């Protein structure tokens, strides 16, 4: 089953490089992502139904799923299906009307569609490998592969700004992840006497015998390395550039799926640390950088003039919240994981919607977008719904996640952390409210040659479905999801 999950997108990705017909390639993209989701669903059913007796990850194997990996796999798979539905329509539109730059008005070309589709599918394969790795060396290689495979996606629109973003992304993330490799080496050295290697199960089983100072060094390097990829401040500098310049569908995948995968890398390190009784050390670092990311995001959202950059900073904010939740431990971990699911769906939906706005107004400047409700009513409704969901207005699933984290912070007596957390959540809400409301309302003065904007169903539907899921998550967490998140929480949770 795992082999099929890994090879299906890999093979179809390779095939789509050689397919000549655009229509066939788009159908392949849809079929491959739908097949991936079906396989994932089968894996969920098999794993969560004890009667079937399928074991969790077998010890010593390189690939296998525990609750944590399965949770992130599910999110990734759902996002990719949504993204492929969206991109089928998007690619058709791009083909018909290739590029005039939104803000500076110059003409550019797109990368060949085969490269885009191929890299998209290979990207899915690499991300599946990240969620399935039970060996930290493989995990590292897969995370680096996601960087390399997504770089051509960011450079889909071939012009200066996207190239600048791609270069920064490639260099900063590659160097950052090289530091995670150092972390792996330290981890290997920490278990050298006992001969654990880098196998996750062996490391977790004998975590107490690991050499503590070396394990701390390993955690720091892994944290900085994967933290760069995850977009935690102050290592986040590539993130707003890449998210604002990539096509909307790629931004959605970067934000919703890729950042989670990097977070998984950090969570693996946290797992080992808490097994070795170092959870105070790892938790402290996570809380510190989580709050720092929250503050950075809050300050930059306040003065933001570009709505895609605003969404990118909101991702940094949420990554900060996830790190904070994982660092606080206890019930906050549940909140963080629920928040991760909610954030992925809501943010992907928002990026999809931002693509529609970009198509309608041909600008990313917030001040140039006015009266969205009049020009594109369905897009505007989605845009406003997304705003309420992402900022955690009840009954959004993200509210539940944020609330659980707050509860844990207060319950464990960390009032300062709780205070800063609430203050910056408030600042982010205020900053985003100004932007979203200004864009949705007001009078739109149509330009001389402006055509009415057609909101394609294929581009509206994914965001709509994702938003409904986030809303449902806040009202009712299904039993299977609850089992999964609780299981994952137990994996990360602090050792007594």
């Amino acid at each position, binding site marked *: 089953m795992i082999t099929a999950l890994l090879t299906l997108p890999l093979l179809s990705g390779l095939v789509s490089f050689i397919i000549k017909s655009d229509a066939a390639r788009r159908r392949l993209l849809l079929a491959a992502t739908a097949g991936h989701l079906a396989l994932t669903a089968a894996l969920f059913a098999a794993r969560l139904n004890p009667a079937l007796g399928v074991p969790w990850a077998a010890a010593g194997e*390189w690939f296998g799923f525990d609750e944590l990996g399965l949770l992130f796999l599910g999110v990734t798979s759902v996002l990719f299906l949504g993204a492929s539905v969206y991109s089928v329509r998007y690619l058709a539109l791009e083909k018909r009307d290739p590029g005039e730059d939104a803000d500076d008005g110059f003409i550019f070309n797109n990368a060949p569609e085969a490269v885009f589709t191929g890299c998209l599918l290979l990207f899915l394969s690499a991300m599946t490998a990240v969620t399935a790795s039970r*060996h930290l*060396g*493989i995990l*590292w*290689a897969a995370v*680096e*592969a996601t*960087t*390399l495979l997504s*770089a*051509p996606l960011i*450079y889909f629109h*071939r*012009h*200066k*700004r996207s*190239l*600048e*973003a*791609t*270069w*920064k992304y*490639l*260099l900063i993330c*590659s*160097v950052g992840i*090289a530091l995670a*490799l*150092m972390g*792996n*080496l*330290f981890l*290997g*050295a920490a278990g*050298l*006497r006992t001969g654990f*290697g*880098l196998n996750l199960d062996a490391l977790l089983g004998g975590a107490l015998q690991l*050499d503590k*100072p*070396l394990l701390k*060094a390993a955690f720091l390097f892994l944290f900085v390395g994967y933290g760069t990829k995850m977009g935690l401040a102050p290592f986040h500098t590539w993130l*707003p*550039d890449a998210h*604002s*310049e990539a096509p909307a569908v790629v931004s959605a995948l970067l934000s919703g799926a890729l950042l989670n995968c990097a977070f998984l890398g950090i969570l693996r390190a946290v797992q080992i640390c808490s097994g070795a009784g170092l959870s105070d050390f790892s938790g402290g670092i996570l809380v510190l950088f989580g709050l720092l990311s929250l503050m950075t995001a809050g300050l*930059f959202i306040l*003065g*933001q*003039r*570009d709505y895609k*950059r605003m969404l990118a900073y909101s991702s940094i904010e949420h990554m900060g919240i996830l790190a904070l939740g994982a660092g606080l431990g206890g019930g906050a971990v549940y909140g963080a994981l629920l928040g991760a699911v909610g954030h992925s769906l809501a943010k992907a939906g928002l990026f999809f919607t931002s693509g529609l706005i970009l198509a309608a107004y041909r600008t990313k*400047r917030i*001040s*140039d977008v006015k009266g969205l409700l009049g020009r594109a009513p369905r897009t505007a409704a989605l845009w406003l719904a997304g705003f309420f969901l992402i900022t955690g207005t009840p009954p959004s699933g993200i509210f539940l996640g944020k609330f659980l984290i707050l509860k844990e912070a207060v319950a464990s007596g960390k009032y300062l952390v709780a205070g800063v957390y609430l203050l910056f959540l408030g600042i982010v809400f205020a900053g985003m409210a100004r932007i979203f409301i200004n864009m949705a309302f007001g009078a739109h003065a149509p330009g001389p040659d402006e055509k009415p904007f057609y909101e394609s169903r294929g581009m509206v539907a994914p965001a709509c479905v994702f938003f409904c899921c986030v809303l449902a998550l806040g009202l009712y967490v299904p039993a299977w999801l609850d089992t999964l998140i609780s299981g994952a929480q137990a994996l990360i949770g602090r050792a007594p």
Partner: protein
Amino acid sequence: MSTLAELTIVFIILLNLALAVSGSMSVCIRLAAIQGVAAGLLPLLAGGGVMRGRAMAFAAFIILLKGAVFPWLMFRAREKTGARRDVDPLIGYPSSIMLCLGAFAASSWLGSRLPLPHSGVAFIVPASLATIFTGFLLITTRAKAITQVLGYLVIENGIYIFGLALFVEQPLMVELAILLDVFVAVFVMGIAIFHISREFDHIDTDQMDELTDWHQSEEGGNI
């Protein structure tokens, strides 16, 4: 306890200093390649001649990649972009070499403090850390995109030596996956450099400053 291995380590440290002062791009590419080859030879020299076939084959693979393939890719990138011959440092060479020496001193101190398992080769940990620092120096203080890729390769050399110092044996598949990633990284960065030179007519990364949050208030004023 091999004298040859220790001499190689000294050689690698000297190469770091040479990288910091060399002003010619082609010299820099060659120096990084020689350093990669020296790093690839290290396990053979330290092992005292008794090597298993697997390790031999792997070392040969690394030497081929770092000594031949990478420099070839870099030279190609340099020629196709028609970049000027010098590396365009953002700080002077004296300060570069002082930083490099300082990094070596700091790494020696750090190497003696780290509770690492003792490896037979003297100075291997400081040398690896100093190599990583040199890589960062190249990335941050040289303007050209090619030199930044070189810096990335030098960091990779340093991490490879560090792995040798720590005796961390990874399964062959994992080692190969890591090498494949580094190879693809250099390859993709090479392609990106072609595009940069075509779009911008230069490959000076310090002039790539369109994407920022700081200039936007001025832009906003113009609307």
